[in-house]
């Protein structure tokens, strides 16, 4: 079931992180950009859990605690971010971040 090497987990995490990054860079919809950010946070969580599993001590659970905090913060971020997206849509009638240049000089 479990791999005896850390490398595959780290590679999966790096791949997901870069996919999320690409999503943030490429897409032109705030909601999908937010989804990319969520994906990046999740990729980091894989690392935390993998490091916890490969730590020799059985009492050490900082990795898991970090993931609990990360999940909670990501949920709060998603709630506020999506509320902002809806609010912005009401104002500009668009979810394309390029249309939000009112403060551009």
């Amino acid at each position, binding site marked *: 079931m479990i791999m005896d090497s850390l490398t595959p987990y780290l590679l999966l995490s790096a791949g997901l992180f870069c996919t999320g990054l690409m999503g943030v860079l490429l897409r032109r919809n705030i909601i999908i950009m937010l989804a990319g950010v969520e994906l990046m946070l999740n990729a980091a969580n894989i690392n935390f859990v993998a490091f916890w599993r490969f730590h020799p001590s059985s009492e050490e659970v900082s990795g898991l605690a970090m993931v609990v905090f990360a999940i909670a913060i990501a949920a709060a971020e998603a709630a506020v971010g999506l509320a902002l997206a*809806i609010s912005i*849509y*009401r104002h500009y*009638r668009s979810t394309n971040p390029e249309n939000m240049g009112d403060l551009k000089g």
Partner: protein
Amino acid sequence: MWFEELLITIKYYLVLQMPGSLQPVGSAFLSSLPIMTSFGGLFALATLLERKMLGRIQNRYGPNRVGPGGLLQPVADGIKMLTKEDIVPKNADHLIHFLAPLGLLVSAMLGLSVIPFGHRLIALDIETGILFFFAMGAASELAIFMAGWGSRNKYALLGALRAIAQMISYEIPLILSALSVLMVVGSLSLSDVAQAQSGGIHTWHIFTPWGFLGCILFLISTLAEINRSPFDIPEAESELIAGHMTEYSGFKYALFFMAEGVAMFAMCALTATLFLGGYHAPLPILSFIPGPVWLFGKLTSLVLLFIWIRGTMPRLRADQLMEFAWKFMLPMSVVNLIAAGVWVALDGGVAAWILSGLLNCVAYFGWSRILSQASRFNPRTYRYAEEAGVSK
């Protein structure tokens, strides 16, 4: 005890007859087969029971033509559903439309796997059983969205969005009221929760101040979570045809119907496990009757209660439903959590009884008085993401 041991022995005997590589799969299969068959049969009986009871409540006979006293009505319904044409709308998102009923039924069935049906009689005895149960409940929300969105029908979409909004709102009091039990038991595993109530009827959690209020809150949230009357606005026939099931016919519709039934049984079984002593007998003398019999008895009485409520209560309005969830259920479940905390801190006893009971009573009467003075059936108000008439 003997019945559970007998079942477990039979299972191990059968598993040992298999070739070595097949044993894990065979063990999982043998654990899930009784659950799936018994709940499938129970579902068939419950549909008949529901129609019969609703008929009696409404002063008519209910189905009585097929078989003796209408007993074979579920078989006739099943044959009718199977032979009906399966219609998929032309513009529907075919894959999503196809996956939705399957996802709903699978997530409902998976929830049953962590319910202890007897001593050691549990398909998946994991440390975090109740979390698994709620995670599966959360996955069913997504299936409902897929059904509503994949159908390309505005009634289906509206019904799905109503269902999801309602399920998310009522999930919070649901989990918070279950949390009070977990706090007192000190474990997330449902077999531990059932074991904590093994000493007879006085150890059941419903007979404590926090357990009583928790059980009522849990049952109300359960009604909303499984979209049953009086919280059945997602599939309100008079407004939305059949909600997210509008564009489904034939066997897929039957799958939806079955998923709802199984979800109802799963929630009732969880209620019985959390508050009503699970598979334990009310008196230690009666414990020669096998555990599954007790659990199914409790489960069936809760289902009868739900049918009774369905026959009695009028349907709520969408805004009343949300107001009830956020302004009443949520504060009450938080207060109940504090009451359970008082109970844990004082370690049971008379003082804990009085204190946590007083806390619940004061909060209940005080808050309902404030709420009833604040709102006297306000007229319905509408709010949109965008103002009407601007975008068109």
